């Protein structure tokens, strides 16, 4: 986010400040440790989780424009922190859309994006943070991200054939299982194209980076934009 997608991070800051939130960006922060955890190197996570606690424990809320990083802290830090520290962080770390939907309870997004948009539901945001109902479960359909996007003027969400299939990024999976990863991504892109999406959006830059890489190589016109930029009204096509 810091190195590759600064515009997204800036959109988060701007959006929150416009809503009267006092935002700090502690520059000592680096990474939550998810790549190490998911690749099996869990012992490398301990000190990163410890740093995370040190850096963020004094804030009221920790807002993160990534479903998977948020889920890492909320659902996977129990192996790496004391239960007191873990519980303290757990209740204050929020994915960006989740924060503005559940905490700020925003229902008057002031942004316009007159395009047909396909929403990529990143898996950890969906099935670990429960930002929306998953197609596997028999539950009332809901989506916090869709609820927010529905407030954006001119934005039309397209209906996908497979509304919550994984894009195939999966961290190191993207390179260790390169062929399956790319096939999954291509199939996702095709679904969005068939649904006449002009833009793909989502809550995780990593998924979007993977899809964008495939789209660019194929020469197709289908930009990927993080949902924070659309909600902030700063999305550039």
């Amino acid at each position: 986010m810091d190195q590759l997608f600064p515009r997204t991070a800036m959109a988060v800051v701007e959006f929150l400040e416009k809503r009267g939130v006092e935002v700090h960006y502690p520059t000592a922060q680096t990474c939550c440790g998810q790549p190490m955890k998911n690749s099996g190197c869990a012992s490398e996570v301990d000190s990163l989780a410890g740093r995370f606690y040190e850096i963020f424990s004094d804030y009221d809320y920790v807002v993160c424009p990534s479903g998977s990083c948020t889920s890492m802290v909320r659902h996977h830090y129990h192996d790496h922190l004391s239960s007191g520290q873990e519980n303290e962080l757990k209740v204050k770390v929020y994915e960006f859309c989740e924060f503005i939907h559940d905490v700020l309870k925003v229902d008057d997004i002031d942004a316009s994006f007159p395009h047909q948009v396909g929403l990529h539901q990143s898996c950890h945001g969906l099935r670990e943070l429960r930002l929306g109902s998953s197609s596997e479960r028999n539950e009332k359909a809901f989506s916090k991200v869709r609820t927010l996007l529905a407030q954006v003027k001119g934005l039309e969400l397209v209906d996908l054939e497979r509304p919550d299939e994984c894009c195939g990024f999966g961290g190191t999976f993207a390179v260790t299982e390169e062929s399956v990863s790319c096939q999954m991504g291509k199939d996702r892109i095709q679904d969005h194209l068939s649904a006449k999406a002009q833009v793909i959006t989502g809550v995780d830059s990593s998924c979007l980076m993977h899809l964008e890489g495939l789209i660019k190589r194929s020469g197709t016109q289908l930009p990927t934009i993080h949902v924070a930029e659309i909600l902030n009204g700063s999305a550039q096509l």
Partner: protein
Amino acid sequence: MNHPQAADTFLENPEHAKWHDRALWFVRQKRDKASKKLPEWEDLRDLAAGIKKHTLTKLSHYLQEFESKAQANGLHVHWAKDAEEHNEIVHSILEKSKVKKIVKSKSMLTEECHLNPYLESKGIEVIDTDLGERIVQLRREPPSHIVLPAIHLKREQVSEVFHEKMNTEKGNSQPEYLTEAARQDLRKDFLSADAAMTGVNFAIAETGGFVVCTNEGNADLGATLPPLHIASMGLEKVIPRMTDLSVFLRLLARSATGQTITSYSSHFHKAQEGSEIHVVIVDNGRSKILHEPEFIKSLQCIRCGACLNTCPVYRRSGGHSYGNVVPGPIGSVLAPHGSPEAHHSLPFASTLCGSCTDVCPVKIDLHTQLLNWRSKLMKSGYLPKSKVISMKVVSWTFRHPKVYATAGVLFRKIFPLLPTSLVYNRWNAWGKQRELPSIPKMSFREMYKKRKKP
């Protein structure tokens, strides 16, 4: 061969891979429709998971209850500590009755024990009678799915093997024609077999009976005709009461194929007069899993195959790519217990998307178990050195924010200057089919520092 290599091979035929993905997605959609017709679906899952959890915590009690009730019904009960002992027990029962030929309905456990080649080496003919299982048997290959054993094959391929082995019309791949041909061919085997083998879907402690779920009726025909029926069951198949069965029967077929119930749910309690029923209860590594809190839930599995159908990796790499009798997410969780050496790539054959966990009718935390396996395999030294070292370097950098920030600045300055040939090379797996992201001039921390607060 590890999973990524086998998956590469599978994806070399993109048309077939696409067809495979669509065929299984169709099954997943049928499952969605069936499960959503039951408003109590999520309650059923909770209940089923609870019953299984309870049973696993009192497993020896329920197994012994099952044994004594089954014996009271006149059933013969055997205990096998592993696959080898299972095969020996089965063989000794068959030998006693001078059996030369058996008909077998689908049983993943006998596949797990590699029973067919064992019995064949002892001169006993084994005929698999489930249609899909028969097809893969004729092709001399393992099943690629636990419920749909021949899902990797198109009907044209079935037509070919039937023509070769059963002399059906060359090129006739009509499903009705091929099914009828298999029926006629199998009928001879049903009539001439000396014994039958089945698996067990549920063993009921309270009654000492067991239940076999099939769609083709082959288990019933096989078990009823000859005077000897041997049923093999993993020791996790026991459930406490008859009333518990209704919970599982409602979940099983809906999860597996989207049917409300399998065509046949056959209950076996007592042998017919002049016949014998033997039950072989098999451990083969299961009791070891019972003692591993991180993995115990995997013993709740009822082998519905829903996690295979939903898995985006399974659908795009095929069952054989897992190199294990049980493929897909549940297979990747079970296989490394037996041989981490052979199966260490399986827990990494997943994006951890969690669809398996959400689809599972008995609420096994499959993607969490895959993640648990990764750390466990790392501790046992099964991760490539390159991965471990690079993760150590990255983690060290992340612990030193100044080094991290400087490295970021250097990277963003140097990287755009590099020639394409240096960036996209054979060591860059990312760039084989994907472009790398464009590099922004400034990092967020630089932008944040420079910006004026409103």
